[in-house]
């Protein structure tokens, strides 16, 4: 079974461009009800991502007013070079990797680093259990 069989397709998970401010990125996350947002450039290459956990840690660290925090470019608060997978990767191996790294979501990239989907743990496990 391959990752592309179960990944969430583009348009169905939060993705914003590099000019997006943090407030807008968080709104996207909230509307999609997913704990992550991917940030891409004009070529749809993945530049970074922000997770609920990243945000929680930022909130404890950031010292500036919230109004200044919210208007920062989302990218400066993003995790860069995150772990990713390929559409053709073996689903079981990727799910094992997610377990080892304690990751709930994994961006799926084509070979040219273009973002093409998101592997979310729940549907992946469900699919595997279905056999």
């Amino acid at each position: 079974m391959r990752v592309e069989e179960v990944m969430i397709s583009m348009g169905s998970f939060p993705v914003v461009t590099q000019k997006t401010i943090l407030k807008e990125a968080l709104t996207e996350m909230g509307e999609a009800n997913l704990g992550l947002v991917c940030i891409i450039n004009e070529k749809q290459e993945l530049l970074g991502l922000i997770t609920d956990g990243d945000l929680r840690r930022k909130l404890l660290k950031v010292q500036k007013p919230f109004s200044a925090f919210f208007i920062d470019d989302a990218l400066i608060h993003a995790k860069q070079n995150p772990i990713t997978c390929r559409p053709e990767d073996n689903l079981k191996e990727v799910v094992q990797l997610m377990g080892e790294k304690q990751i709930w979501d994994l961006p799926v990239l084509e070979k040219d680093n273009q973002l093409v989907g998101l592997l979310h743990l729940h549907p992946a496990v469900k699919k595997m259990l279905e056999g």
Partner: protein
Amino acid sequence: MEQKIVTVGYGDVKQVQIGGTLPLAFVGGPCAIENRDHALFMAESIAEICEKLDIPWIYKSCYDKDCRSSPKSFHGVGIDEGLKILSEVRETFKVPVVSDFSDASWAAATGEVCDMVQVPAYLCRQTSILRAAAATERPILLKKGQFMSPWNMKNSCRKLEAFGNEQIILADRGTFMGYNMLVNDMTSFPIMRYTGYPVCYDATHSIQLPTSMGNISGGQREFIPYLVRSAVANGINLLFMETHDNPSKALSDANTVLDIKYLENVLYQAKKVHEMRLELFNELGPDNVHPTIE
């Protein structure tokens, strides 16, 4: 954050490049255009000082002061006469010129003549004004409203970018502290510079005490050199100061405008501090103390 360079000047005027580690530039002149002869006299006087100090400069004077405290105050010579005078200043001294505009319908004519257009501080959030400024395709001197935080100026920048103009210079002219009082937050410069755009310090409006004299504004001009040294040391790219040969008779901002007899002194200090700052950066590298804006 990559720092943008903004070039001011079209045609055969002496272009001024602003931003990055370029030499400090100056923008100044009388607050309001009073008449043709006075404008030419002031331009000649400032040119002489800037040439002596080797400071790139832009002539600033406005044709319509739309935010005066009193209806009886001098409002300006008007757009037609004003732009004619600015055009003559520009041609005579080959210096770029800038004026603000307070009505969106004035923007196109202002941009046709002026090398840069200025958005007044009180109007820095007005979408119609920003759209009109962007449409001139000239560089834009965007004043930070006295009621705005430096980080919220990014919203205005994003509007200008959305309207297709990314030639922006952000200027701090003080922030309201309670009533009739302005203060300068020196962290505004690194914060606004984080947008990537050059930053400017408007010294003569920063020492203003808005409407402190009932129907006109006062000012504490004695603080100009202190604040200029601080702002330059904090990394501004452009210094803005209104200047006049006879401040007590100035038709606008008489209590804040810098007497031109002090201009050389203040500009000399500004240039020296700017050069010293660049020398320090050459020696030590850019600021790297807790290197994050978090």
